[in-house]
């Protein structure tokens, strides 16, 4: 394989790509859907976790919390008002500061704070608010404070916000429209217009053509996928792990795309297969969309092993231990698809690319 020729073909793809409607659609569609979902359901413009405070005394912690830029603080006059706000989801967590709170922690006494958490709030937001309250108490006492936060969950814990439910679907769309659909349609277009025959009767090999198309799909799918995560504030936790997972998933998408392009005869058939195959690709996202469906159903589908780590990191605050298995499966799937791609190339060499 000649990297020089792959580079030449890559240049051609990039020159031709922006003139192609599908190329633009692959970038724009997921972003537009993501923005629409965020605007309708979500937290696009209110990304900070919200802390509700009901102060039974006159604690300085309230003022200190209000000065913070990383969280939004709202004050309530009564415990009932605070509980109501939590129940409605107006705040992610509400705390009740007992009378004499400041004196107690200054004297090093054990202090208990009642906290109410909204059942639908994200785990990472609860974790941020919990850490913030403990940090403020430490600043107030000037040393490590012995504050116990006793949480009570209000609202439906199984209920997940819609924008979070939709996120896996939009991420998969981004990865597979760019990563899979674009290389597939690009190969098929070249077959239909017979330009692929012209390319492979030069010293250029079929592998070089496929690699160039796969790289363009990979780059576009990864870029759009990361943009979607950034737009949904899902990119802050463990960015390197997220990039790794997204990259492995997009490699799989590009491999499937190139193989599909080589095997499918024309654009009409591709669109027909996309309708059917799309269900298989996006099935795991429907399990996240409707949490009533048992998770084992999603595990049957290869794309689960892309979306599970993304959700685990971005929504559950998970790290490497929680995603290791999925990442290993994803690497296995990438290698398996590489084998399939090699078999397709070998067939094309023997019987022609249009066979």
């Amino acid at each position: 394989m000649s990297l020089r020729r792959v580079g030449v073909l890559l240049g051609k793809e990039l020159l031709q790509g922006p003139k192609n409607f599908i190329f633009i659609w692959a970038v724009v569609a997921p972003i537009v859907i993501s923005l629409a979902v965020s605007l309708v359901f979500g937290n696009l413009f209110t990304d900070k976790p919200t802390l509700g405070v009901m102060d039974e005394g006159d604690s300085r912690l309230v003022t200190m919390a209000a000065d913070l830029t990383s969280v939004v603080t709202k004050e309530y006059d009564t415990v009932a008002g605070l509980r109501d706000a939590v129940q409605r989801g107006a705040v992610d967590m509400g705390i009740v500061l007992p009378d004499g709170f400041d004196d107690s922690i200054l004297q090093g006494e054990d202090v208990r704070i009642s906290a109410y958490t909204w059942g639908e709030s994200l785990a990472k937001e609860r974790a941020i608010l919990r850490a913030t309250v403990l940090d403020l108490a430490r600043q107030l006492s000037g040393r490590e404070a012995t504050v116990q936060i006793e949480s009570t969950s209000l609202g439906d814990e199984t209920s997940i916000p819609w924008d979070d439910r939709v996120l896996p679907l939009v991420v998969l769309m981004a990865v597979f429209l760019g990563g899979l659909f674009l290389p597939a349609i690009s190969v098929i277009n070249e077959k239909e217009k017979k330009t692929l025959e012209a390319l492979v009767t030069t010293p250029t090999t079929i592998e070089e053509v496929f690699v160039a198309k796969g790289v363009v799909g990979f780059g576009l799918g990864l870029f759009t996928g990361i943009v979607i995560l950034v737009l949904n504030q899902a990119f802050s936790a463990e960015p390197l792990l997220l990039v790794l997972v997204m990259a492995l998933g997009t490699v799989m998408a590009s491999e499937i795309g190139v193989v599909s392009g080589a095997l499918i005869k024309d654009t009409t058939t591709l669109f027909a297969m996309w309708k059917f195959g799309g269900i298989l690709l996006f099935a795991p996202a429907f399990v996240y969309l409707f949490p009533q469906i048992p998770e084992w159903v999603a595990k049957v589908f290869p794309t689960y092993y892309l979306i599970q780590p993304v959700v685990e990191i971005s929504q559950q605050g998970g790290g490497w231990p929680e995603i290791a298995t999925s990442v290993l499966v994803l690497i296995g799937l990438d290698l398996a698809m590489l084998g399939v791609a090699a078999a397709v190339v070998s067939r094309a060499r023997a019987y022609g690319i249009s066979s």
Partner: protein
Amino acid sequence: MSQDAIVVEDLTYRYGQLTAVDRISFKVAEGEILGFLGPNGAGKSTTVKVLTGQIRPQGGRALVLGLDIATDSKRVQSEIGVCFETTNLYEQMSAEENLRLFARLFGVKPFDSSALLQRVGLAGRESDRVERYSKGMKQRLMVARALVNRPRILFLDEPTDGLDPASAEVIRGVILEERARGATVFLTTHDMMEADKLSDRVAFINQGRIAALDTPHNLKQQYGKRALRAEVASPDGSLASREIPMDSPETARAIEDLFEHERVITVHSEEATLEDIFIRITGRGLV
């Protein structure tokens, strides 16, 4: 014409049950123009696909420039130029961009696209998108693309099919220039007149087999019928035609009789065309 540029031995290719190319054998010398003639579905394009390394032979072998096409296709492809039957240019790119892309893939440096475009009569239109070109212009660009690497063998599949006379003439001129440069030309066509004009030798392919292979002159000698055709006026004033075979011992006497006993209006010599010979050999026409 010294070495063989192409050597084909018992070449076979099947599409499922259909044998498209059936144990054909032939040689093409360096610097020769071989006209490869046959009707649609005769096996012409399949043979070209094998010889240009697009598909692997399923039987026999083909040596192109001394290399086995089944195992050395990429080395062969760096030395050949292919002009396809169907237009397969990047239509959203300009003519210049199309040529530069292929020159880069061949690793041709330096590359002068303007000279090549001028040669095929496309100077001044190099920056236009190919989608705005006429069929003749596209075909001329296809020929130019086949020349970017100064190929040692030029495969041309129906290069003038359906073209206006001016474009066809430009392409025929390029073919003769390439032969003069020393390139071998493998010309696939079903235009017998064109093959007759351009080819050093012609091969007739029919139902996957080579039915005849020789120079046009020899084929005409071997299979053709030379005759004199005369138009004569009958006593009632109507016209009738008379044919006198030219290769008979009685020819001189027949001509004498004709002028002595008939009122001759016109006389033409008649020579068999390649198409006549093809029909005679294969029992079918070229369509």
